[in-house]
């Protein structure tokens, strides 16, 4: 058996640009795959193993209208709406029974994931036609990169994080939602409808999953009922590495993981890129048991205590 690894790219200005685009591509993917899961886990203490299927509903909600002739950007809104509506229904009927019951929520949402993907198979068959990625590519030297994957999606990812930061720190809703998460009983005593807060927060997480599905519908290749798993590993690894804070955690985890993933892929091939990503996750779990954002919190508290 040959032990072939891909020949490393020769270093040049062009190949460094290629590396940068690979990093951006990976960064955008990890942020978008993670953010919906991070909100539902970080704010509500529910581990949503159906996260991949929420994304898949965004994919199908986009692909079906698109194939019926709706322009792609409009079809994408359909994907977000579909996932949001689905999320609200699921929260009202299933998830609201599982708040702060971690293990039970895992089993329930895992079951939900199986049901969703099997239903998609039964209703829509084994695959939908794929959608070509818009925006073409940018060429530099011998190389080229997809504008959609390596420029547009990372920009959307950053915009989503900025938007979430504003939502949870600058609006009345954000303050109420955080109060509900910190101390539901006091929040209720202060007149906050905590049930509604949970539903809205879950809906936001679902909408973000739907947005991810909508955005990746034209960047996924095949659209099949089992594609939800494509997003799941990166999403879980990023939440574990990132730690409890949704925005700082997602941003820092995506940054660190994609540096290693992109550099590994660039130097040694996609296999090593994937291995490095998992290796970093293992090391991070050992060295930073509270994740990157947990470590930053601890560090801040220590500094305050010293002052």
């Amino acid at each position: 058996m040959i032990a072939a690894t891909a020949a490393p790219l020769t270093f040049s200005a062009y190949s460094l640009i290629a590396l940068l685009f690979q990093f951006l591509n990976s960064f955008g993917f990890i942020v978008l795959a993670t953010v919906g899961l991070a909100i539902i886990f970080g704010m509500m203490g529910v581990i949503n193993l159906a996260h991949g299927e929420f994304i898949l509903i965004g994919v199908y909600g986009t692909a079906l209208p698109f194939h019926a002739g709706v322009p792609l950007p409009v079809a994408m809104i359909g994907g977000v709406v579909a996932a949001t509506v689905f999320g609200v229904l699921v929260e009202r009927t299933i998830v609201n029974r599982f708040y702060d019951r971690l293990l039970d929520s895992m089993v329930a949402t895992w079951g939900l994931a199986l049901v969703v993907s099997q239903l998609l198979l039964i209703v829509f068959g084994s695959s939908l036609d794929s959608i070509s990625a818009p925006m073409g590519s940018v060429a530099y030297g011998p190389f080229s990169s997809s504008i959609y994957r390596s420029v547009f999606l990372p920009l959307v990812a950053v915009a989503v994080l900025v938007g979430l930061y504003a939502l949870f720190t600058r609006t009345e809703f954000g303050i109420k939602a955080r109060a509900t998460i910190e101390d539901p009983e006091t929040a209720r005593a202060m007149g906050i409808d905590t049930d509604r807060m949970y539903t809205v927060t879950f809906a936001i997480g679902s909408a973000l999953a739907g947005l991810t599905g909508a955005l990746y519908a034209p960047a996924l290749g095949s659209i099949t009922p089992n594609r939800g798993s494509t997003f799941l590993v990166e999403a879980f690894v990023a939440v574990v590495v990132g730690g409890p804070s949704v925005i700082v955690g997602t941003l820092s985890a995506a940054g660190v993981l994609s540096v290693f993933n992109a550099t590994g892929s660039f130097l040694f091939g996609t296999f090593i890129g994937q291995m490095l990503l998992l290796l970093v996750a293992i090391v991070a779990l050992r060295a930073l048991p509270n994740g990157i954002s947990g470590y930053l919190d601890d560090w801040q508290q220590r500094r305050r205590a010293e002052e």
Partner: protein
Amino acid sequence: MTHESLSRRSVLASGATALGVSLAGCSGGGGGGGGGGGPTVGILEDRSGNFQLNGTSKWQATRLAIEEINENGGLLGEQIEIVDPDPQSDNSRYQELTERLILQDEVDALWAGYSSATREAIRPIINENEQLYFYTTQYEGGVCDNTIFPVGATARQQLGIVTPYLAEEFGEDIYIIAADYNFGQLSGDWVNVLAQENDYNIVGEEYIPLDETDFSSVINRIQDEEPDFIMSMLVGANHENFYAQRATNNLESIPIGTSTAMAQGHEHIRYDPPALTNVYAGVSYMEELGDLREGENFVEDFYERWPDANYLNQEAQNNYFSVYLWAQAVEEAGTFDQQEVISVLEEGRDISAPSGDLTLDGATHHMEHEMRVARADENHDISFANNERIGPSFLREEVEGGDGCDLREEDKTTQYVPSDVYDV
């Protein structure tokens, strides 16, 4: 950090690791029960999970063939029963079901499995019970096993028709990309063997994990090496994204040779041009070939029976003709007894299949296939070229120091690999 969130986090971490295991271990309901004493065949083909896209038409074609035989009076005067639970692309479920079909339903012949990993997972059970088993997917080749008939084209047959064709047309610098498991690795070895025999240059070689969907770094490396053509043995729905990303990066000027794309997952239909433009597949059959038998129309019959079917793929045709191959052998043996049927099959047989007049090589249990190069043009229309009859030469003439494998002479349950014969 409170204790509560600490425990949340550790649960999450263990959940993430358990996820793969629990999904892999998932199992659902069973299929119909067999028994009843009549002749029974087992069909284990994936109708859900990762391989459902390829497995479903294999299941459909097997059923079609058996139903046709039953409509024409059955075999030896008896109607054939079918047991066909869905193994859901899950190898541990395959093992369970294989045991059940052999021991409980006592199937007289078994058609099972899409991937080579599946075949290897159930092979020990097949061997232990000496079960007559038809494996119909195109595969890396080399399986020499008493009761197994791998009737799909092998890597040497598929790559052997398409690689020299592309080298002649476009030049001799080859970049290999393949799925990172037994099939992909061994197929890559076969391209290396062909390169050694013909003095081609392998300018790059990369094996890609099955769950990878992003090929930007692969594409950058290919652009860096500027090969004359690419040999792609990528597998499964995740890897298809390579063809989509190839179109985004205007890479369709570099032709691709393949043993996996188009003829199985019908990517040329599911993707918009130019994703598959200038992809050349070494195939034994594709739906576009129609039916080469006089007065028969396999494609029409197939869609009449299964109006919702997506595509009639290369593997489905193998399932179809191998059911008839088995039926002929049963008629000749005058019994469903598996050892006697195998003895008849080992005499070698000619069979008229939709893909042409084929021959079963009794010694190796493999087929002499009519191989051709299928090309997708800028509209993804398929044309065929370079038709050639290729036999299982690796097993027949090359292994065991040139003596070959002869299952009529000796018992074997082995798989030969290219490195047994070649320095790769």
